[in-house]
């Protein structure tokens, strides 16, 4: 042991403290960086020779400090929790948005929705009943019927528009997911090389973690760390990234909500591997969009089609028992636009009657009315009463109005439930984020305290050098005299 070795000890101390201050600087610089995990220099004292030999003996005093390892402070379990919770929150966010848009499409309760159009439509028959030979009242009913049909068409149109929009954004999302997966594969490769050559790759790992979190939100991916430093990213059991390989995904399924309703098995939207075509059970935003396209929107379109068909059946069955102002028996009042009455949907419902005189308001045939055309309004009355429902034994069973109202109420309940779930899920994921942040986040107070510590240690080491120097000076001057 010599004075020179003490100088060396002071030297390691100086560089170790300097390194620590560098890392502190890096932490402070990234205090607001998303996904950054704080780093710490792991200092280790360098001991003397553990096993003595002839020329290698130690005086039991160590020879300084080693500051080679810089550790990323993070909790792998919290990271995994965050991935799951973020995926759940993203899924619910999409569903919540969908419900909000569906509610906007129906515009209830209010004066512009289908309910209000129905409320305008039925009194049209009441006006005809008040004045069955007046073409003005009849013309008005036809206009209101057209408005009602147009209202059903436009609601259907906006649901279709939402569906198409969802499909577009799912396509974009999958393209983005493919790009992210490739980036993770490249990062895996770099991190693997760095690990093999014992180089630090903390910042690359941070970058990779934040990409994985993005994939978790988009598609519900989870990550498993491997021994060689790479991450294996899986989605619903299918591995998306493994080592430096990433597989590509694609969207499969029909092109409209109507197609999904026609054949749910073949036309449901799914995310599949490309090539391969194996279905991937995705979570996150993608799952929310698939729920939107496979159940929410097709579900409401189906119910709205049911309302349109019920309205047509209800009105047609009564209208066909009546006689018009030409004395002929009434035909269909509503049809599917090409004469059919059994496949009426909200998208194709049309008013089959174009001549106001052809509205069959009278119950008496010309034969029953002594050869005259009857001006009675018994059928118009029955049609008007249909607004209360379908008469059955003194009471009324649900008509188109009630069916529609039930649908809107169910929509409201669904939307409120989803919105509540989203609130809960967001709170959970914010808490997980805060927990993750409390482990990996940078605390400026802490960094400042550390900086002071390192600074003091640095000054002390400097003092050590100057002490050794003065000791040497003393020795050399005494000898040289």
């Amino acid at each position, binding site marked *: 042991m010599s004075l020179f070795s003490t100088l060396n000890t002071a030297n390691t101390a100086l560089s170790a403290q300097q390194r620590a201050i560098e890392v502190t600087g890096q932490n402070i610089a990234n205090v607001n960086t998303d996904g950054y995990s704080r780093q710490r220099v792991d200092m280790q004292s360098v001991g003397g020779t553990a096993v003595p030999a002839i020329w290698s003996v130690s005086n039991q005093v160590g020879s300084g400090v080693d500051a080679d390892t810089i550790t990323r402070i993070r909790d792998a379990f919290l990271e995994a929790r965050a991935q799951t919770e973020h995926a759940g929150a993203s899924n619910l966010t999409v569903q919540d948005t969908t419900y909000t848009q569906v509610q906007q499409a129906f515009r209830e*309760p209010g004066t512009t929705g289908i309910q209000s159009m129905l409320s305008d439509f039925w009194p049209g028959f*009441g006006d005809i009943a008040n004045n069955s030979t007046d073409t003005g009242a009849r013309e008005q009913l036809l206009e209101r019927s057209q408005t009602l049909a147009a209202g059903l068409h436009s609601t259907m149109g906006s649901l279709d528009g939402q569906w198409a929009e969802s499909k577009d954004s799912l396509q974009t999302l999958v393209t983005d997911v493919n790009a992210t997966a490739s980036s993770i594969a490249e990062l895996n490769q770099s991190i693997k090389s760095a690990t093999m050559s014992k180089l630090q790759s903390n910042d690359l790992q941070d970058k990779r973690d934040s990409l994985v979190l993005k994939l978790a939100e988009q598609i519900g991916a989870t990550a498993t760390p491997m021994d060689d430093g790479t991450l294996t990213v899986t989605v619903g059991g299918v591995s998306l990234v493994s080592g430096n390989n990433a597989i590509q995904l694609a969207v499969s399924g029909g092109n409209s909500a109507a197609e999904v309703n026609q054949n749910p098995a073949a036309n449901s939207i799914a995310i599949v591997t490309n090539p391969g075509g194996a279905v991937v059970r995705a979570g996150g935003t993608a799952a929310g969009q698939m729920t939107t396209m496979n159940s929410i929107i097709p579900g409401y379109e189906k119910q709205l089609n049911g309302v349109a068909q019920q309205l047509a059946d209800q009105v047609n069955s009564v209208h066909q028992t009546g006689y018009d102002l030409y004395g002929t028996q009434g035909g269909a009042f509503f049809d599917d636009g090409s004469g059919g009455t059994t496949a009426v949907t909200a998208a194709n419902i049309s008013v089959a009657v174009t001549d106001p005189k052809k509205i069959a308001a009278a119950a008496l045939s010309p034969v029953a009315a002594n050869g005259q055309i009857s001006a*009675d309004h*018994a059928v118009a009355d029955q049609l008007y009463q249909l607004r209360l429902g379908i008469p059955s034994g003194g009471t009324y069973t649900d008509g188109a109005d009630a069916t529609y109202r039930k649908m*809107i*109420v169910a929509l409201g*309940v669904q939307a409120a439930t989803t919105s509540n779930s989203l609130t809960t899920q967001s709170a959970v994921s914010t808490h997980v984020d805060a927990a993750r*942040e*409390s482990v990996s986040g940078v605390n400026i107070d802490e960094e400042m*305290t550390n900086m002071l510590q390192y600074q003091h240690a640095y000054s002390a080491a400097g003092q050590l050098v100057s002490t050794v120097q003065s000791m040497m000076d003393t020795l050399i001057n005494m000898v040289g005299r």
Partner: protein
Amino acid sequence: MTRVTQHAVALTSLQGLNGNLAALQRLQQQMTSGKTISQPSDDPTGTNTSMIVRQGMAGATQQARNITDGQTFLDSTDSALQNMLDQVRKVRDLTVQALNNGALDGPSQQAIATQVQGIRESLLGQANLVVQGRPLFGGATTGSFAYQDDGTGNYVYGGVGDGTDSRTWMTRQVSDVEQIRVDITGPEAFGVPGSGKDLFGVVKNVAADVADPTKLTTDLSDLDNVIDGLTTALADIGTRSARMQTAATNNSNQQLTLTTKLSQTEDIDLPKTIMNLQMQQVGYQAALAATAQALQPTLVDFLK
């Protein structure tokens, strides 16, 4: 001990602020729209009530129209019948006059006959009274006459229905469950047509029989029957008119109830909402101030 970092503090503060702002926005939306329900999810039960009430209101509005319209018909029928009754009474007076003065000379008898004939034509005019394009006493006819001269001086009924088939009635839906008939057909008011004993037949007989007291006596009792018929018809119309008025009162009550109910369901409680808005604003400002205080200082501020 949990580590707290500035970023975490910022995150949670932001979440709190957002929550406050969302609540503020909801209240502000309620204030500006005046409605508590802007979409079904705001209150599904309220939405249901609101939709049922709106439907009920549309029904009540239409029924109010039906009532006004029906009342017009009843009033017109009433005054037509009243006029006719007056004229038939005139015919009766003339008949009695002809009977009492059996020794009236030819020209006087002729004068009575002419007068009765004139009244008969005026009665035809009344019986063919048209309201809103429909002959009042013609039942469900699309034609413009209830009675017509068949060319031989007989007035025949040209309407559809004699009141026995309820499908030919002209009715008005005055509530969801009640219909009131607003017309009365010729055969009901004036007697069975073609029998010679209906209003026009009897009056025609009177004109023809001025000189024959025996026949005139029979005609007089026939005429009394006709007057009875007309009086009954008038009473019938009067009763229905009273029913119509009750219906009108019920209808306006119902409309008021429904409007109140809709307002209770959909409209905001103004003082309550204003109070809530104020409280929320105070809360939001406090949250802003607290956040600004919590986020600013770090150890850096105190190191020299």
